[in-house]
């Protein structure tokens, strides 16, 4: 990444963080009993619960990863949330009245009353393990990015972030987390809306917002709904309704990180309204985040983009024995960019169906370049992978004499293909989570970068 935080960004980042932490500390002063600590004093209004529930589900990686997902695969991910409103209604009808009537502090306390202490202990342990692992990722993911932006050691950053979060949450309890999440959500959405407006402004004047959506549509990015029954496709209307409903029921109904949010409600009605607020807004919110990612994709139709958004990985591969191959690939991408830019402008003006299919073809070629870049990076960082791939490739290519049986040859070809595609799964090759942050650092105005850095830090709880 070429740009780091400027002094304006630092000022905005520190001022926003200090204001929100200060506000949280002030609002929770004098909280001394368990009721205040675990159930936030049962004083939360429905909008506080709703925003807190939404902020709890959204981690920093959500904003980085979701936009990255839209950049590479389009809007289809929104289908994953179709079951959420159904789950919210079921929780309002079944779970909340039960928790409220029994006046429990945790979801697991109910299980002790319903079954026994062993059941409660088992579910509580399972939750702690699962949440502990998830918290590790929640802290680690933005730490990777902050380490790039700030140039600090990633382990030091993990410790600093972890300690700060522990101090704040342990000292303030549920209330400290809940009361500040409203402000955090406001800052996050103000930042995301500002980012979208700026992206639209950065697209050439000749290209209107509708034209931009048309360009995204030409490359398949606006395929929001998929009614197919393809089991290999993770995001379809059916997986959203069936899988999404059960997943959201378990998450919002039994995961203490969510249950404690609505148990802090003033009354049962406030708790229910808070969850319904989430049920009403979650789908459009995800749609909006995905749309930001799609608009960044359109922006890169008119502006050069790196072959791989992880700068450190690019430097590694360029310095390796695969450096020349990578440079050739970069040159090909530059050539492709000229065609892509020209075609995109022409399509925006004429909406010619022929140009639409050409744009789709160009995007498919760029996808193959991006996959190859990941493959070269993987080979550069993992010599064992490189050896395995090359020896398998030798076996397959050396079969000109037909020495391998047809079945064995097919198996090896499939294995080789899988190995090639697997290169994209490595944390050092998969640049999906780096796309939006690269865009922010390189193209957004100073000050806004600090604000967007804030939301990456703020969504750690």
């Amino acid at each position, binding site marked *: 990444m070429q740009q780091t935080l400027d002094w304006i960004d630092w000022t905005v980042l520190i001022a926003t963080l200090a204001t929100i932490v200060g506000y949280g500390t002030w609002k929770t002063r004098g909280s001394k009993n368990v009721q205040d600590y675990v159930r936030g004093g049962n004083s939360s209004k429905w909008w506080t619960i709703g925003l807190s529930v939404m902020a709890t589900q959204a981690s920093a990686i959500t904003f980085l990863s979701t936009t990255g997902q839209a950049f590479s695969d389009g*809007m289809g991910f929104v289908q994953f949330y179709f079951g959420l409103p159904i789950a919210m209604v079921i929780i309002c009808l079944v779970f909340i*009245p039960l928790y409220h009537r029994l006046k429990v502090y945790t979801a697991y306390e109910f299980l002790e009353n319903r079954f026994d202490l062993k059941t409660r202990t088992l579910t509580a342990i399972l939750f702690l393990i699962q949440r502990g692992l998830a918290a590790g990722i929640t802290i680690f993911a933005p730490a990777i990015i902050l380490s790039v932006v700030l140039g600090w050691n990633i382990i030091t950053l993990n410790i600093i972030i972890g300690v700060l979060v522990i101090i704040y949450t342990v000292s303030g309890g549920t209330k400290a987390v809940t009361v500040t999440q409203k402000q955090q959500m406001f800052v996050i959405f103000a930042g995301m809306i500002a980012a979208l407006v700026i992206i639209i402004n950065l697209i050439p004047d000749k290209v209107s917002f509708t034209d931009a959506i048309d360009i995204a549509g030409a490359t398949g990015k606006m395929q929001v*709904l998929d009614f197919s029954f393809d089991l290999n496709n993770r995001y379809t209307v059916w997986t959203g309704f069936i899988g999404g409903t059960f997943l959201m029921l378990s998450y919002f109904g039994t995961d203490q990180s969510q249950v404690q949010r609505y148990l802090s409600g003033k009354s049962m009605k406030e708790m229910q309204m808070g969850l319904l607020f989430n049920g009403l807004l979650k*789908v459009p919110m995800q749609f909006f985040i995905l749309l930001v990612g799609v608009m960044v994709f359109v922006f890169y139709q008119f502006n050069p983009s790196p072959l791989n958004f992880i700068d450190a990985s690019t430097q590694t591969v360029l310095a390796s024995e695969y450096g020349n191959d990578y440079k050739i690939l970069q040159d090909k991408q530059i050539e492709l960019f000229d065609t892509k830019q020209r075609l995109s402008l022409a399509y925006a003006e004429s909406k010619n169906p022929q140009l639409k299919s050409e744009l789709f073809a160009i995007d498919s070629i760029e996808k193959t370049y991006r996959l190859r870049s990941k493959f070269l990076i993987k080979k550069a960082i993992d010599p064992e992978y490189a050896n395995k791939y090359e020896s398998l490739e030798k076996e397959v290519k050396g079969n000109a004499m037909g020495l391998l049986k047809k079945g064995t040859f097919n198996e090896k070809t499939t294995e080789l293909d899988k190995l090639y595609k697997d290169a994209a799964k490595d944390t050092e090759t998969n640049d999906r989570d780096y796309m939006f942050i690269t865009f922010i650092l390189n193209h957004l105005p100073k000050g806004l970068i600090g604000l967007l850095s804030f939301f990456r830090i703020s969504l750690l709880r």
Partner: protein
Amino acid sequence: MHNPDQPQPKQKWDKMYTIVLIANALYIVLFYFITASFA
């Protein structure tokens, strides 16, 4: 704490539930038109 075996009072259907579910259906209809128009 109350006895968990005690039958739970019957919950009434709130009009907000209907609104949330209808809104979800409307979002899907909107997405259908977006897919049909732009994809």
